[in-house]
């Protein structure tokens, strides 16, 4: 155990700094990711923000029915795919295949999307 000490909890300053550095890595094209988890975190948070924004847009337009749900999955998966394959140029095999990256945080993003869509839709259009 002595060689592997427990991780120290991050202080507020440290975590703010790490968020900033993660953001700068995320917007840098073809960044060499040394930590796989960091890249997956970027995909996760990107998805959450995208879910919320898409939900608000769908509610505002308003999009209705099955087409709204299908379009969400299409746009969400397509953006993540384009991000990792053309912007970051990641080798998906390193992460255990394309599905591992594409499904990272998808369900959570879907539920955030639904909440935003339902709330804005019923506030504006009913």
């Amino acid at each position, binding site marked *: 155990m002595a060689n592997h000490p*427990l991780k120290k909890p991050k202080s507020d300053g440290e975590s703010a700094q790490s968020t900033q550095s993660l953001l700068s890595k995320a917007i840098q094209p073809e960044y060499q990711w040394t930590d796989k988890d960091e890249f997956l975190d970027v995909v*996760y948070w990107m998805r*959450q923000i995208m879910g919320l924004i898409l939900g608000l847009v769908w509610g505002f337009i308003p999009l*209705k*029915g099955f087409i709204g749900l299908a379009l969400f999955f299409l746009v969400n998966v397509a953006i993540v795919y384009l991000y990792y394959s053309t912007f970051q140029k990641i080798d998906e095999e390193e992460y255990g295949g394309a599905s591992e990256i594409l499904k990272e945080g998808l369900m*959570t993003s879907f539920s955030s999307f639904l*909440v935003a869509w339902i*709330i804005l839709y019923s506030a504006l*259009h009913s």
Partner: protein
Amino acid sequence: MLSDCILIVCISICTALLGEGLTWLMVYRTDKYKKLKAEVEKQSKKLEKQRETESNDRTQKKKLERQEEKLKNNSRDLSLVKMKSMFAIGFAFTALLSMFNSIFDGRVVANLPFTPISFIQGISHRNLPGEDYTHCSFIFLYILCTMSIRQNIQKILGLAPSRAASKQGTGFFTPPSQLGR
């Protein structure tokens, strides 16, 4: 209608925070949990690395199997430590949920922009009068809110299980056939 929705979002934020707070109090801050978690994470990462450089050497394979066994035991212990508090919190939240359920009983809290498929209608139209299936009940919106908010709170606070550990699939509820791979 909007005020109901906002209230539900607030309720789910509060319950998620309360749940995580209670789990922290009972589980996350204990030394036993910290030690086990660090151990499981370390072993999962090590195992993943070793699997990548797979060799046909028999002694190597045996070593790998022994490590897998150790990891399996450790993650089982980890799940057991978590389980007690999960049960306690589960009971508390069931009581809380039934209270909210009676407050919002028969009330349409939102209009859905889509008609849910039949087996979800049971939840989304729970205790609501009429046949309009785009009406949304409290419980449906609450479940959706909790699904998104709880996971994100865990992630922000750094309490979500690590990817390496969950990828190994050695949790308490993993069927044995999967473990034997």
